[in-house]
């Protein structure tokens, strides 16, 4: 089994071998192999014109990637940390996202965003960027949590004719494979494969409560479901895998079965994706609900650095367990 980081490397390597139009822009990705070594050894193989150490200029190199994409190339842009994507916001939201809608052609570009908290990474190296993009039409937003998904979805993103916000989780990069729950280490097939966007994955089937999550919190979700099982409560855990397109049916079908639903994400609760999903559930399957729709997200604070603060900020298994118990008792 390979790690999540190795899976990303394999995807990039194979796509660059497959298609000469695929190239990489990013800070320190060539000579240094990237801050997280996803592209280690790439420059030696593909050369400095396809593995490009760009000047420190996120807006500039994102714009350049978009320009190359307009000409039919397939740029993959690595942000050193997802947080820095705010530098490129207008390029993505105003230029890339609407270009096809304005009938000016497709923008096949992948924006790799190393996202979410990693122990004490602080306010500018820990953010979850999806809420900055979720309200903008024309952007696909994907959030692989396993090595299998990381590889298959990155390949899919590179072949997709649209701009793709590709969130990859620093926490999973080097996560020891043997320490992962069985369900988070599916076998990676030999050879080429892609993971289609818009298909959620049920990590654990259950009948009493639907627990819908994505990103790093799949870990807390699975642990909490385990705890609830000991309580005699059966929790269904679903990893959305992609936010746009959204597998709405998977959410609705699950809650129609269980009657209770909890949305969980690492990003802040206010303005988080969970709010939109909760509204969808309320609008479309209200009659199936046996309890209020619940959400867990980070509180109204910036991601703090010091360990006790960060622990208090991040959704924990304990918080999820408490919420699930509360729902179970409702």
């Amino acid at each position: 089994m390979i790690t999540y980081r190795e899976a990303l490397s394999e995807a990039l390597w194979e796509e660059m071998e497959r298609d000469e139009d695929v190239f990489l822009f990013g800070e320190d990705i060539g000579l240094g192999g990237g801050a997280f070594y996803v592209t280690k050894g790439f420059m030696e193989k593909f050369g400095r014109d396809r593995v490009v150490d760009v000047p420190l200029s996120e807006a500039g190199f994102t714009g350049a990637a978009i320009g190359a994409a307009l000409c039919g190339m397939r740029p993959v842009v690595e942000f050193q940390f997802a947080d820095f994507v705010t530098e490129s916001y207008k390029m993505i939201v105003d230029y890339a996202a609407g270009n096809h809608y304005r009938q000016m052609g497709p923008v096949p570009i992948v924006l790799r965003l190393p996202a979410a908290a990693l122990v004490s990474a602080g306010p500018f190296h820990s953010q979850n960027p999806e809420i900055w993009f979720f309200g903008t039409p024309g952007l696909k937003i994907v959030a692989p949590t396993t090595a299998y998904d990381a590889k298959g979805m990155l390949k899919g993103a590179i072949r997709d004719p649209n701009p793709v916000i590709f969130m990859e989780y620093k926490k999973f990069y080097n996560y020891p494979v043997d320490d992962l729950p069985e369900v988070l280490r599916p076998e990676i097939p030999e050879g080429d494969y892609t993971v289609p966007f818009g298909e959620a994955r049920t990590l654990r089937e259950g009948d009493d409560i639907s627990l819908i999550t994505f990103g790093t919190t799949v870990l807390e979700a699975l642990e909490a479901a385990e705890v609830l099982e000991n309580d005699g409560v059966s929790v269904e855990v679903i990893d959305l895998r992609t936010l746009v397109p959204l597998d709405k049916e998977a959410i609705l079908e699950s809650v129609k079965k269980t009657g209770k639903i909890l949305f969980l994400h690492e990003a802040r609760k206010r303005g988080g994706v969970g709010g939109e999903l909760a509204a969808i559930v309320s609008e479309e399957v209200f009659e199936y609900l046996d309890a209020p729709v619940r959400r867990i997200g980070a509180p109204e604070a910036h991601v703090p650095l010091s360990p006790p603060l960060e622990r208090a900020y991040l959704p924990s298994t304990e918080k999820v367990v408490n919420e699930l118990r509360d729902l179970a008792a409702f």
Partner: protein
Amino acid sequence: MDAKYPLATREELAGLDFYADLADRYLAVDGLEARWVSFTQKEILPDRETAERMHYLVSLARAVEETLDSAFRAGHIPGTAFFGRGNEGASVASAMCLEDHEWLVPMHRNCGAHLAKGHPPRSIMSHFFGRADGPSGGRDGNFHMGYRPKRITQLISHIGTMVPIATGVAWAAKARGKGEATINYIGDGGTSAGDFHEAVNFAAVRKLPLVIIIDNNQYAYKTLLSDQYACDALVLKAPGYGLPGFLIDGTNAPLVHHVCSQALARARAGGGPTLIESITLRAAGHSVYDKFADYVDMAHFEKWTNERDPIKRLDETLIEFGVMTAKEVAASHDQARKDAEDARDEALQSPMPDPAGLTEGVFAE
């Protein structure tokens, strides 16, 4: 370089007068040296075929924009409209140096560049009128448009963003190794945006085949140049990036063509980017809503629009040197006017977009 190309002194640069100092020379900046290059109008004249085409396109640019302006006042244009009056010569003369398969990355005062690159007036009109058959199908308007059949990218309102886009277009050209070059325009205001810096630096670092033309039309909406930058001329930024630069009178279309052809040839040959500062005067408001007389020095405005109108200058120069007769020049204007008005009349017959298609095309398939 020798005595034929005298060094510009510190005093000359500090006291640059765009009107007087660029009349029969331009400034070539290379490294720490800025030199004056004198020319005669005769020696920079293009051949007859090029001149005729240039004249028609310059006339067409003005005719299209004047037709659009009256269409706006007649209520045919939703939203607003921005025009490039005063910039037609620079716009046309530069873009017509591009080959058909090369890309143009325009700004919102580049009607002439669109036309020179082959964007049909009919399509431009439909776009301004918000019609279904315009290049954006009514999803955007005014000069927020590209035209993919002729390799023209679209722009967004965020000034500065097109320079990074242009570096990417040039990147693709270089990566594919077919010796293609790209032209991009940015205004004097746009040079203050961070994107400009990021993009020019990147283009220089990677020696991209790109010609960046700063259309310095002396106003960024209602802001004076003295509030926009403190260097003596924007072209002096070029050496800071390791690039050569030229400061030229952009109302002299043959000169623009002369300088731009050389910059493109250099780019195509792998020599890297060139920065050209082209001086014009925005001979109208920022947009159709702008009461520019409130803040523009009208004596300066009158002087430039009377004596540095690019179209009048081209008329006179082509007649003076016998490239075209007065009669041919008049006929070229008439043809341009007719073509613009025909395009308007046809576009006004085009259907409006169907709201049923509102959410179509958000994603490419």
